[in-house]
């Protein structure tokens, strides 16, 4: 099975990096999260309810929808914050990218560790610009808002192609497909990583952050 890969690019001002990344990541995860599964004895299961909430951006004229899960929001904010700091400290041209990868675990026999097979990867490339005047910043607010609207439309278009999704697992295998560690929602297993690149596109700093909440991680 081939991994589906989607790439989005945004140009933002430094203070807009966090909100732009959160908007994109939350929009993707909104579509890739379900309610908590509750398995019953006869092999059937029921699904919990996913709530949603609107988030207004402070530095961008934009509002996005995320799932109502503070745990998930905190996890995303943590990694986006690290990305923002890395971008700022890189001192380069302000180029970087974040990758949100959805994967499945495949059990391997001992002594080999479980395989992580990605089935969808979203890459967001960020270019940080520096603006001099307040008027430019105001225009940037609006322009970045429009760009994010286009990105949301792109994401929705991909989601509604109804391409490969992992099969609904049996109870024993649910942790190979979903992240069951959150209290209120159940996203597909995902990991987020980021890279800071210089103008030539080569990787100057590669920082991998694993956000696997699965207790089986080795």
């Amino acid at each position, binding site marked *: 099975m081939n991994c589906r890969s989607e790439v989005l690019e945004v140009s933002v001002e430094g203070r807009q990096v966090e909100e732009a990344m959160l908007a994109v990541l939350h929009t993707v995860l909104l579509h890739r999260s379900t309610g908590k599964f509750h398995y019953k004895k006869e092999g059937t299961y029921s699904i919990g309810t996913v*709530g*949603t909430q609107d988030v207004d951006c402070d530095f961008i004229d934009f509002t*996005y929808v995320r799932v109502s899960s503070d745990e998930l929001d905190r996890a995303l904010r943590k990694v986006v914050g690290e990305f923002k700091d890395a971008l700022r400290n890189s001192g380069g041209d302000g180029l970087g990218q974040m990758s949100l990868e959805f994967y499945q675990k495949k059990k391997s026999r001992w002594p080999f560790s479980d395989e992580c097979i990605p089935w969808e990867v979203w890459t967001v490339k960020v270019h940080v610009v520096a603006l001099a005047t307040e008027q430019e910043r105001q225009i940037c607010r609006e322009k970045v808002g429009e760009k994010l609207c286009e990105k949301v439309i792109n994401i929705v278009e991909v989601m509604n192609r109804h391409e490969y999704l992992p099969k609904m697992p049996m109870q024993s295998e649910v942790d190979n497909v979903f992240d069951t560690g959150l209290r209120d929602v159940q996203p597909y297993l995902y990991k987020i990583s980021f890279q800071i690149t210089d103008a030539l596109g080569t990787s100057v700093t590669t920082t991998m952050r694993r956000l696997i909440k699965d207790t089986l991680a080795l």
Partner: protein
Amino acid sequence: METDINSQDRKDLDKFIKFFALKTVQVIVQARLGEKICTRSSSSPTGSDWFNLAIKDIPEVTHEAKKALAGQLPAIGRSMCVEISLKTSEGDSMELEIWCLEMNEKCDKEIKISYTVYNRLSLLLKSLLAITRVTPAYRLSRKQGHEYVILYRIYFGEVQLNGLGEGFQTVRVGTVGTPMGTITLSCAYRINLAFMSTRTTGEDTGVTYPSVEDSQEVCTTSFSTSPPSQCVFTVTKAHFQTPTPVVTDTLRVPMAGLAFSHQLSSSRLSYQPAALGVGSADLAYPVVFAAGLNTTHPHQLMVPGKEGGVPLAPNQPAHGAQADQERLATYTPSDGAHCAATPSSEDTETVSNSSEGRASPHDVLETIFARKVGAFVNKPINQVTLTSLDIPFAMFAPKNLELEDADPMVNPPDSPDTESPLQGSLHSDGSSGGSSGNTHDDFVMIDFKPAFSKDDILPMDLGTFYREFQNPPQLSSLSIDIGAQSMAEDLDSLPEKLAVHEKNVREFDAFVETLQ
């Protein structure tokens, strides 16, 4: 088209489509209320959350949607449409968006109803949640208030896109294939925001809706993880009555106040009550709900305003006048001209220039409606204020000429007898100089009511300040009188000082010798 779908699957599919249509309408209308929406996740299924999503049901909206559907379902050639329009306080309205739920003939016979179709409909609702925040009407709806409101209308049948103006754009939210056809959800939205004056004759009979006590079907769905051949699917139905509607915080509309949004800054409108629909699906309903009020009584928030003026809240008439002054003040710095000029009754449309030159959906938000309202022309009080601000005190000047003789500032009292000729000469200059600084006092203010002051609370406080500010007292150090006085004193004291110094001449000599 005949398919192999069995009757149970057909029933389930019809039910799914029906509730999907109702939830679609809820999502769209709630996204145009002007408030942020927030619902909670629940790990335990409650049984009433269709498609595993927490979407609240506003009873009136459900009622209107059911009335529009009239027992039918979206089918080929019969689409369910939600029209979102904007209506200004003057009665002009404009269609902003049409959301269409359609069915086409492309069938997917292999798809599983109870599982795949249901999950894909759930995904489509999530996409709808995201897309409704992204079209231009969302930002407009977040800023609705006194100047305009957002209305919705649900109709069933042929899609009517004529009201969207030229060059409208379309965004597809998504599709779900079913054995009966492919469900498509899309939105056509207006690009050209040039105002079309389509005044509606306002039948302002505030419609009261009966509280909707409807039976609501409940779906509890269990999914099996067994192979398809042994698929077990149980659906239980329960009937219960919806409780009395309670307005939650998310439905409250913030009062926009009197501030202008930058997009509509030239339209200062006298507001008239919004025309409410009369219970027919053909009329639009305001999507504005008052805080704390029962949602079974939707109504307008605004009240009739003064003609050519500012809308007043019913219990604060003073604020109306106050608001006029405030509005005046906001235009003074931007105009750079005197307040007397009628502030910005611009009748040109301005379009912000996108630097990229591409027509993106949000460029047109800068287009300002063409409204011409001559503000304040019917207000003699403000005219008086304007004039008085224009040339300070000028209009009172002719009245007070006869009082000049009695004005002590113009004719100062006689100076006291001079003690020395030198002093006298110096004083005489002072008296004439003194009066020169008081030319402003030729005008005595009578009944002066300056702008921005509230006479009822602190009478003439601002007026007093104005007067003092215009007629400041002379600085004592710059006054010639005092300067003349001190010089005279110095001259008088000179002989005494000389005498003292002569006594100490030997000390001075000794001091000089030490320096050499």
